[in-house]
C-alpha cells in the first residue's frame, strides 16, 4: 500500500507544479475558514492535514505528500554518502513521509515537518540497517578506494608528479571529501584474504589461516578422559565394571547381567547409582581444580 502511494506520488509530481501554481489562490480562503489559524498554526501543510484528518480525502493526502518531496529529498541527501543511490533513499524516505501523514495529529499544534522528520529519517536508517552488508564498510567506499589508488598511479605517471586531492577526485568522479575519506578509511577497513601471505622483512611468511589459532578439541578431550579415568577408579568395583561393560564395550544390560551373574534389574539399579556417583565425583573434581 505504501509503495503504491509512492508511485502515485511520482505520477503526481508533474501535477505538483500546476498545484503549486494554483496554491496561493486556494490558500487564502482555506486560511480564513480554518479554525487552526486562530490557534496560531498558520502553515499550509498543517491546514491541509487538518482537512485531511477530517475528510480522509485521498487527493489531499497526495497533495501533502507531493508538497513534502523537497523535505524528503533534503533529508535523503544527508544520507547520500553512505553508499546507496539517492533515488532509493528518497523512495524509502517517501514511505516514511506517507506514514507520517497518516499518523499526524493536526490538533496538537506541532509543525508537520518537525513531526515527519524522525519518521522519514527512521525509514532511511532502517533501510541501511536492513541492507545487512556482508562487510561493515559499503562496497562503494572500497571501490572508491581502489579507484583512488589506480588514479594516483595513473596521474603520477601522466603528470610526472604526485597528484593533488582535487585531481584524484576529478579523475574518479567523487568529491574531495569522499576522496580523502576513501584514502583514509578504505585502507583501514580493507579486508585481507585468509590465504594472503603477509610480508615479513621482505620474505613472504605463512598465510593468515596458518597462523590463526583455534580451539584444540583433542586437548580438551584428553583432559576429560583423565578426569573420567580418575573418577572411575574411585567407584566401587562392581559399579565401575558395569560402566566399563555398558559404555566402553557397548554391551546390553542383559549381557552385563550374564557376565556378572546378577539379574538385569540389579544391573539397571547399579548402573543408575554408578552414573550418579560418577557425576558427583566429576563435579567434585572440577571444584577441586
Amino acid at each position, binding site marked *: 500500500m505504501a509503495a503504491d502511494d509512492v508511485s502515485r506520488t511520482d505520477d503526481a509530481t508533474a501535477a505538483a507544479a500546476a498545484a503549486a501554481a494554483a496554491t496561493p489562490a486556494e490558500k487564502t480562503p482555506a486560511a480564513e475558514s480554518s479554525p487552526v489559524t486562530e490557534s496560531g498554526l498558520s*502553515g*499550509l*501543510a498543517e491546514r491541509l492535514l487538518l482537512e485531511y484528518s477530517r475528510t480522509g480525502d485521498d487527493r489531499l493526502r497526495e497533495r501533502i505528500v507531493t*508538497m*513534502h518531496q*523537497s*523535505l524528503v529529498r*533534503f*533529508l535523503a541527501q*544527508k*544520507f547520500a*554518502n*553512505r553508499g546507496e543511490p539517492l533515488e532509493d533513499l528518497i523512495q524509502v524516505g517517501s514511505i516514511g513521509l506517507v506514514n507520517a501523514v497518516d499518523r499526524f495529529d493536526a490538533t496538537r499544534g506541532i*509543525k*508537520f*515537518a*518537525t513531526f515527519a*522528520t*524522525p519518521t522519514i*529519517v*527512521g525509514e532511511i*536508517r532502517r533501510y*541501511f*540497517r536492513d541492507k545487512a552488508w556482508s562487510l*561493515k*564498510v*559499503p562496497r562503494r567506499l572500497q571501490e572508491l578506494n581502489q579507484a583512488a589508488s589506480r588514479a594516483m598511479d595513473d596521474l603520477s605517471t601522466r603528470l610526472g608528479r604526485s597528484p593533488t586531492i582535487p585531481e584524484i577526485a576529478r579523475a574518479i568522479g567523487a*568529491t*574531495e*571529501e569522499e576522496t*580523502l*575519506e576513501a584514502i*583514509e*578509511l578504505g585502507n*583501514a*577497513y580493507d579486508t585481507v584474504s585468509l590465504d594472503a601471505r603477509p610480508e615479513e622483512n621482505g620474505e613472504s611468511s605463512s598465510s593468515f589461516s596458518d597462523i590463526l589459532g583455534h580451539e584444540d578439541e583433542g586437548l580438551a578431550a584428553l583432559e576429560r578422559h583423565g578426569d573420567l579415568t580418575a573418577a572411575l577408579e574411585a567407584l566401587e568395583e562392581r559399579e565401575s565394571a558395569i560402566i566399563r561393560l555398558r559404555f566402553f564395550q557397548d554391551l546390553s544390560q542383559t549381557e552385563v547381567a550374564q557376565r556378572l551373574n546378577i539379574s538385569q534389574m540389579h544391573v539397571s539399579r547399579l548402573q543408575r547409582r554408578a552414573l550418579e556417583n560418577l557425576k558427583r565425583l566429576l563435579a567434585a573434581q572440577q571444584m577441586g581444580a
Partner: protein
Amino acid sequence: MSEEPAENALVTLTIPCAPEYVGTARLTILGVAGRMGFSYDQIEDIRLAVGEACTNAIERANRNGSNGGGASAQIDMRCLVEAKRLTIEIEDNVRGGASGTEGGEAAEEEFSAQELGAVLMEIVVDEVTLEAAPNGGTRARLVKYLSDTAPSE
C-alpha cells in the same frame, strides 16, 4: 595495532566559519570516532551531526553577516574521547542568538533547514544540547555512547 589511547584524549580543531571547511571537521571526527571503535554507520551518524552543527553556525553567520560581524567568524570543535563516550562541542563566535529561527525570508518553504538540522542531530546522536557560548556565539554539545554490544540501536 597500537594500544588504546590514554584514558581521556582531547582533540581540538578551529576552522573558519565557511562551507569549504565543514568537510575538514567531518574528516577530523571520522578519524577520532574511527579510532574509538564506532561502527561505520555510527561514525556516519556522528559526522552527519557534526556537519549539521557546523552548517547551522555558517547559516547563522550568513544571516547576521551584515549587521553583526566583528571578529572573523570561526568554529571551534572540541572532541573529548572517553572510554565509552565521545563528546563533541561545536562552538561558533557568531553573535545573534542560539537556534533562533526568524522564519523570515525562507518562509515559503514548508520547513526551515536549520530547525530540521537540530531535529536530525537529535536523531543520530544520543544527546544534543544547544546553549549560548560565553563569547556570545552558540555551542552545540553532541554526545555519542559507545555500546559494547553489536552496533545497533
